[in-house]
């Protein structure tokens, strides 16, 4: 079963593993460089109100992401085999 949600839809405190990124090579590259590659474990911290940015935690650091980008990052249930440290990238 495929239960993917975007970073925008995650609730505060929820965790997940990045499964899919909509968007071209450029966006994937930018996300990768801040640690948001496919296979990475993320924890949602908050969404700022009035369509403000989304804040997530990855690799123990915080990243702020505008809604437009947050909507393109799809997250599934935490995948313990490929969490911190050993990223799988496609």
């Amino acid at each position, binding site marked *: 079963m495929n239960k993917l949600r975007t970073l925008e839809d995650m609730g505060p405190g929820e965790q997940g593993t990045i499964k899919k990124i909509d968007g071209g090579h450029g966006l994937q590259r930018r996300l990768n460089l801040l640690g948001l590659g496919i296979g990475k474990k993320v924890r949602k911290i908050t969404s700022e109100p009035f369509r403000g940015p989304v804040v997530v935690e990855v690799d123990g650091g915080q*990243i*702020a992401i505008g809604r437009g980008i947050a909507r393109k990052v799809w997250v599934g249930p935490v995948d313990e085999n490929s969490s911190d440290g050993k990223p*799988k990238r496609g």
Partner: protein
Amino acid sequence: MRIVLMGNPNVGKSVIFSRLTGTNVVVSNYPGTTVEFTRGTMRFKGEKVEVLDAPGVYSLEPVSKAEEVAVKLLRDGDLVVNVVDSTHLERSLYLTLQLLEKRIPLVVALNLWDEAKHKGVEIDVEKLERFLGVPVVPTVAITGEGVKELVSRLDGASPGNLELGEQERWRRIGEIVSQTQKVYHKHPTLLEKLGETSVKPLTGVPLALVVMLLSFTIIRFIGESLISHVFEPLFEFYAPLATKISELLGPGLLHDILIGQLINGEVDYLQSMGLITTGIYVPIAAVLPYVLAFYLVLGFLEDSGYLPRLAVLVDNVMHKLGLHGSAIVSMLLGLGCNVPGALSTRILETKRQRFIAATLMAIAVPCMAQTAIIFGLVGRHGLSSLLIVFSTLLIVWLALGLLLNRALSGESPEIFMEIPPYRPPHWVTLLKKLWMRIRGFFVGAVPFVLLGVLIVNIFYVSGVIQVISKATAPVVTGLLGLPEEAVVALVIGFLRKDVAVGMLLPLGLTMEQAAVASVVLAMYFPCVATFAVLVKELGVLDTAKAGLIMVTLALLVGTTLSQVL
């Protein structure tokens, strides 16, 4: 020989730079770009060596201006010190591998080593050295730990010989990280918890208000103390000299321009209006202390990690104005002095953003001098009148931003940035930055202020002001409801806002008139120095557009205000 410091943003690169170099540090633009980098010197093996602090980047693919400059600086360098964030080894190594591919002698500083320890991150330095083939030195820049060893190992710097594609690079990083790094689970520290609390809206917004209130209280305290204990005594010391010059000159044209009018036979710093009396007293004794205090506090908020959180909190509002959260830094800088504020709009990505940010700042963000004016003119009518003036400016700022975002074609890019953890700032680095900003105020603003006084005085003596005043009188008295005597003041305000206030004060304006006058004074034109920066940064055409918006809006708002009040 030239050493280039390279690393991701927020890894303490500037603190390492500060540790390596002495006090002789300059900020310059890379030729042909608006990206700034810092340059200094250090002694290495008895030789004077140049050290360049490149802008913080995540990769060497020239997709942003900062990366372009970093790549160019790399070409000028003989040796690279790659400052790596030990708490984010994986992400940092991307740049490291790219540097190894450039085949330039490299040394890696594993900075934030202490923070990594606290976070439960363990890195096998020897193994990492073997993987990379270059010296790797753990450092804690803020305490100076490891910096000596870093310098001693510069000799052993060796170039890499890798040749990787993007996918291979990430694969290689995965391999290195899995074999050199162990992460143990640790409970979040108090600072980490605070870091989360301050971006969550329910707790973050009240906290932001407290931080702002506290900041302004501290700024006021430092500013006032500096004035009464340092700057006023300094000018008392200077008074006899000014009097002497006045006597030597005798009455005449030159006296009127340099010294101005004597009040009761003596030089009066606030009312004489001469170039070497009021002209230097106001920027140095009345404005500089607050600018200094302001940038000290702002630097602390920046380096401790609070400002990025504020940027995230206000991003939703800024986005609707066509900007993003980071632009709040320009606006805050503008509250100190519009000159560095306007210069800082360079960091924004698009021309559209720079135009919106610079225009909003010039029109509706009062600098320390303007704030002092508003307090002087309106403050004696009580708190509610101050509130009227500042909330009018805030409304103008918001409304104009919304309008410009609608009217100008193009998109407003989204925020996408790392929020660094809270850290104690490094005082020397902080003071160096403060010094560079103050120098910017001296070099960029003060000469123009003096030029402004000179021009006003020449216009005044030659009668030009009186002619212009006659022509604009119907607007000032008719639309704005101000007395006729205020016309001259407002015309002079184009060049010198503080002089204008000096002339408005004795008129005994009502609260309503004072509010209208200070709003119009704040809005219709920035100071000459800011204007010069705008021309340099935006070009003549866009500055003309911004100027047109300012004058129109100032009249519109002034007229409305005089009707409503």
